[in-house]
């Protein structure tokens, strides 16, 4: 539905552009079955003729065409801006992927019949390759104009293109058809080189449709430039860059829409066989369940009958009748049960006997335990008796120890008491000696006092003696000094008399 809505919008915008409309219809066709394709081709031819007639007559259509051209140019300018942000090698990788997608889409679109037609036309179209190259070069020149000039230049270019369209259409009707065929051949040749998975084909369908739309824009420009006087010469590098930009846009824009449609179609187609298989399995399961139920019923019913009719089952076993495997198993089961019944009765009797025996054994064990307990009690009593006997011996020993302690204590008491008495006596003697000592001290003190007095007297005498001695010494000193003085006087007189004769001698001179 999304594709249909987009296609309707495009048709309303580009009603008079027959080429673009035809391309959109071609894209819509591959989803349908093969017989519809043949019908579509016939109808498209008539529609083209009608649209061309309208373009020639109406003037209002020219305005719409100018708007369309503006949109195309604006779209072309955007990738240039994007190119500034993106690095080179990544862009190239994306372009390679998109190219592969185009090839795969071609394979999807071209069925057996279309493929054969393509091959038929390929032989006769080689002469037109030069025209394609010139068209690409002119397209690049036009982009360059858009960048440099403002909006006015864009409008003027649109008007010029409108005037030229009528002449181009008249002269080159056949050439357009040839160009389409050449493109188909190119796609088929690319298809042979690449091989991709089916999922990838569905994923990449959107890119082809978008790229085809932009290619329509190129064709319009090409027709105008062929007859114009401008001679554009640009390098191959620019062409490569432009192609990469276009491819990236195609890949990013339309993937989401077509992917969802393709997936929904695939899921709707795939569910049917699964449902059939599921139904078949369910029927099989039901049949198996029924069979199992039957077997279960057989297994349940027969042993019950065998239980109710034991004699019959035993007779059958003895006869050796063997029908189906189930029947034989059921009879065996019945025979086992009969055997078990007999065994159970005997076993019950045996169990009763065994239980009685066990009870008796338990009683015996209890009796043994009681005997052991009594024996232990007897042993305890014997041990107590022995202990009591030993206690008597202990008492005797205790008496002896006590006697020893008594004797020791008595002896120590005696010795200590005697020693204490001796000490007391010594103390008395010492006290007596102290008294004597004190009396002696008193005497000594008196003597000491006397001695002190005597000493003082002696000191006084000594002092006097010392004074006397000093006086005597002083006298001796005085005597000596006087003698010395006298001697000195004598010497002085001698010197005086010796000096007197000298002046007499000097006078006569």
């Amino acid at each position: 539905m999304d594709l249909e809505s987009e296609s309707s919008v495009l048709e309303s915008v580009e009603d008079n552009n027959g080429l673009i409309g035809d391309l959109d219809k071609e894209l819509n066709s591959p989803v349908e079955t093969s017989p519809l394709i043949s019908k579509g081709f016939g109808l498209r031819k008539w529609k083209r003729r009608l649209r061309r007639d309208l373009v020639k007559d109406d003037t209002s259509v020219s305005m719409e065409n100018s708007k369309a051209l503006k949109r195309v140019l604006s779209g072309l300018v955007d990738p240039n801006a994007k190119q500034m942000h993106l690095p080179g090698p990544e862009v190239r990788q994306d372009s390679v992927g998109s190219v592969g997608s185009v090839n795969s889409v071609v394979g999807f679109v071209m069925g057996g019949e279309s493929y054969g037609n393509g091959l038929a036309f390929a032989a006769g179209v080689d002469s037109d390759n030069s025209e394609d190259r010139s068209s690409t070069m002119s397209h690049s020149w036009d982009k360059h104009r858009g960048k440099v000039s403002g909006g006015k230049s864009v409008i003027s270019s649109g008007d010029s293109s409108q005037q030229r369209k009528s002449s181009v259409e008249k002269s080159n009707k056949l050439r357009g058809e040839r160009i389409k065929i050449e493109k188909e051949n190119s796609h088929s040749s690319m298809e042979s080189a690449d091989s991709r998975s089916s999922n990838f084909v569905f994923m990449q369908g959107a890119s082809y449709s978008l790229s085809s739309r932009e290619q329509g824009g190129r064709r319009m420009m090409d027709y105008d430039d062929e007859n114009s006087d401008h001679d554009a010469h640009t390098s191959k590098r620019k062409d490569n860059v432009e192609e990469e930009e276009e491819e990236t846009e195609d890949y990013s824009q339309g993937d989401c829409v077509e992917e969802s449609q393709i997936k929904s179609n695939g899921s709707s187609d795939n569910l049917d066989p699964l449902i059939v298989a599921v139904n078949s399995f369910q029927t099989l399961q039901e049949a198996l369940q029924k069979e199992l139920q039957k077997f279960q019923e057989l297994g349940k019913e027969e042993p019950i009958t065998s239980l109710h009719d034991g004699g019959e089952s035993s007779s059958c076993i003895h006869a050796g009748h063997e029908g189906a495997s189930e029947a034989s198993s059921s009879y065996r089961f019945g025979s086992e049960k009969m055997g078990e019944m007999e065994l159970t009765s005997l076993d019950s009797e045996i169990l009763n006997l065994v239980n009685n025996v066990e009870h008796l054994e338990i009683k015996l064990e209890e009796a043994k335990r009681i005997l052991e307990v009594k024996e232990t009690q007897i042993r305890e009593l014997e041990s107590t008796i022995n202990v009591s006997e030993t206690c008597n011996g202990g008492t005797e020993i205790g008496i002896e120890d006590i006697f020893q302690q008594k004797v020791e204590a008595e002896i120590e008491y005696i010795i200590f008491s005697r020693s204490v008495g001796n000490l007391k006596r010594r103390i008395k003697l010492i006290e007596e000696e102290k008294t004597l000592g004190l009396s002696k001290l008193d005497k000594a003190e008196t003597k000491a006092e006397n001695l002190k007095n005597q000493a003082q007297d002696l000191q006084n005498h000594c002092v006097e003696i010392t004074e006397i001695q000093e006086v005597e010494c002083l006298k001796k000193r005085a005597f000596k000094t006087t003698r010395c003085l006298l001697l000195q006087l004598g010497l002085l007189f001698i010197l005086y008399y010796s000096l007197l004769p000298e002046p007499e001698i000097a006078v006569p001179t």
Partner: protein
Amino acid sequence: MAETAETINTTISSPPPESESSTTISAMTDPTSQEAASKDTDLTKEAESEKKPGGISLRIWPPTQKTRDAVLNRLIETLSTESILSKRYGTLKSDDATTVAKLIEEEAYGVASNAVSSDDDGIKILELYSKEISKRMLESVKARSNASVGNGSVEDANTDASEVSKDDAGPASEEEKSEA
């Protein structure tokens, strides 16, 4: 210390206190008996001997002869008088008791005197002395009881009876016989 030195010097240098002490001793000897005189002399000798080293010592060991005599008297009493062991093993005569006691005391004194201890007071040696005496008394009493059992039939009958009243009567009868 000065006072003690003075006392020592006075005792050594001055003869009069010795004479005074001798006079006191002579005065005491007159009214009392020879034993008392001997005791006093022993005490004086002991005092002199202990004073000479220059200090008073509170040594308990070695004991004086007087104390040893006291110990002997006590041992004789324990052996001759009634007690737990006497009730069980019987009593001894006074003469036998004295001889046995002397032997026991001499042996114990020898053992104790041979022993060497770092204790200055001599308390440990005293304990050893007392233990030795007690052991030897038990041994002697048991030996005597066994000998008496072996000697006479009458004693055997008394011991076989093993009654308190009869045991008490036995030694009394023996004592009466010995006195007679």
